[in-house]
Each structure stands twice: as structure tokens, then as C-alpha cells.
């Protein structure tokens, strides 16, 4: 699991790549907490185009980001999920809590 970032005009984009399972979730959540503290973004986009695998542990990470952004008065959404992660997002019903933007 890798996380790359881009920041501009108050918007932090988190580019997730690799596999986000329970084994990876704790360090990913810790790193994301650090990034949110560092950038204090107004908006946060989670780009999943590079993510090859995700399960419900990844859903829990997204819910955690959404709680933090809500506390900070900001918004969070998911961008470009594909393949397996997209099917997991669909099955979880996360879009009721965090908007999912599908390109194409």
C-alpha cells in the first residue's frame, strides 16, 4: 500500500495504490491522520485509480477519513475506483456516506 499526495487550493488528494486490507489498514490510517494534520485541508479527494484490492477494512479507513473531515468542517469523496475496489464500494453502500465520483 502506497499513498501519494497532491495539495492545491485547500484540496488534498490522496492517491492510494496497492492493496488496502486489514494488514495495511492500520499504517494507512496512521499516515492519513498525519497528512490531514499537516495539510488541514478543506476538501479531501481519495483517488482509488491505483488501488488493486480493497476489503471492508478499507471501507473502515474511508469512514474514518470522512469523520475527521466532518470534524474539520470539510468534505471528502472518492474518485476513480475501478474493478474489485469498485465492487466492494458498491456492496458496502458507502456512497450514502461518502460520494463516489466515477470518471468516463
Amino acid at each position, binding site marked *: 500500500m502506497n499513498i501519494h499526495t497532491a495539495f492545491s487550493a485547500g484540496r488534498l488528494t490522496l492517491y492510494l495504490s496497492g492493496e488496502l486490507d486489514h*494488514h495495511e489498514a492500520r499504517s494507512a490510517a496512521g499516515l492519513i491522520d498525519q497528512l490531514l494534520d499537516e495539510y488541514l485541508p478543506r476538501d479531501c479527494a481519495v483517488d482509488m485509480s491505483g488501488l488493486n484490492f480493497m*476489503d471492508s477494512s478499507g471501507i473502515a479507513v474511508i469512514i474514518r477519513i470522512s469523520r475527521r473531515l466532518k470534524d474539520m468542517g470539510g468534505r471528502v469523496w472518492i474518485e476513480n475506483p475501478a474493478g474489485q475496489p469498485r465492487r466492494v464500494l458498491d456492496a458496502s453502500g458507502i456512497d450514502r456516506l461518502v460520494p463516489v465520483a466515477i470518471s468516463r
Partner: protein
Amino acid sequence: MNAQNYIKLDFPSQSCNEAFARTAAAAFAAQLDPTLEEIGDIKTAVSEAVTNCIVHAYPKEIGRISMRLRILPDGQLEISVRDWGCGIENVEQAMKPLFTTGGEERGGMGFTIMDSFMDRLRVRSAPGKGTTVVMVRALRQRRKRI
């Protein structure tokens, strides 16, 4: 000839084995010529079942997990994941969406995802004795083998 094929894997409940278990399951399923989407579904369900053993069945110790994959006579794939951990008091309640005893780090969506990605899901559990999750998935036959 496929009808009798099976594998059995025993491993300790270390989280680094989550990726290994789902990759092994996908490799076994490959002989059924699954689509990419079917491979993803199998990996997801295995990841959920194995993670539950690691997180819930053995919260404070490293215990044994046994995964068996089997091709049923009708060509369906059966996946069984077993632990000898704490067991589940109320299985019906545990399987409800959003139910979790895991707090902040869990979302309570594991069984819901297993259920929606597999054709059949059965959970047997006894408190103090352990849990067995059995899942069955029919794979579309894409092309006839020669």
C-alpha cells in the same frame, strides 16, 4: 477430473497471511477459468473470512486458521475458513450489516460483503470452540476446455 480437486492450508493468525490466503485461493480457482471479476470476488470473500479469524477469533493470541477450497461435483467452488478461537455468541446478529464488536477500526460490513459476493454463505460457531465459514460460488463457464 476437476470434481475431486481440493487444497487445504493451515497458517497462524498473523495479518501478513491475509494477502497470502486470498492469493492462494485465486490461484486454486484459476483452474475453473474464472473471469477477472470472479477472481476479485473470491479474493474479497476470503480476505473477509480470514481477517475475521485474525481480528475477532484470536484477539489476543496467535491461533490456527485452516482454509480449504474444493471443487464440488457440479463444478462450483466451495471455500471453508475455520478457526478454533472465541466463537460467536449470536451468529444471526453478527451477520447483520454494520454489526461489529470491533470498535472504531471495523465497519461491520464483512459478512455483508461475503454474502453479496458469494452464492451461498453458512456460518457455524460455538462460543469458546471456534467458527467455520463455508461459502459457495458458481463460476460461469466461459469457454469449453478442449
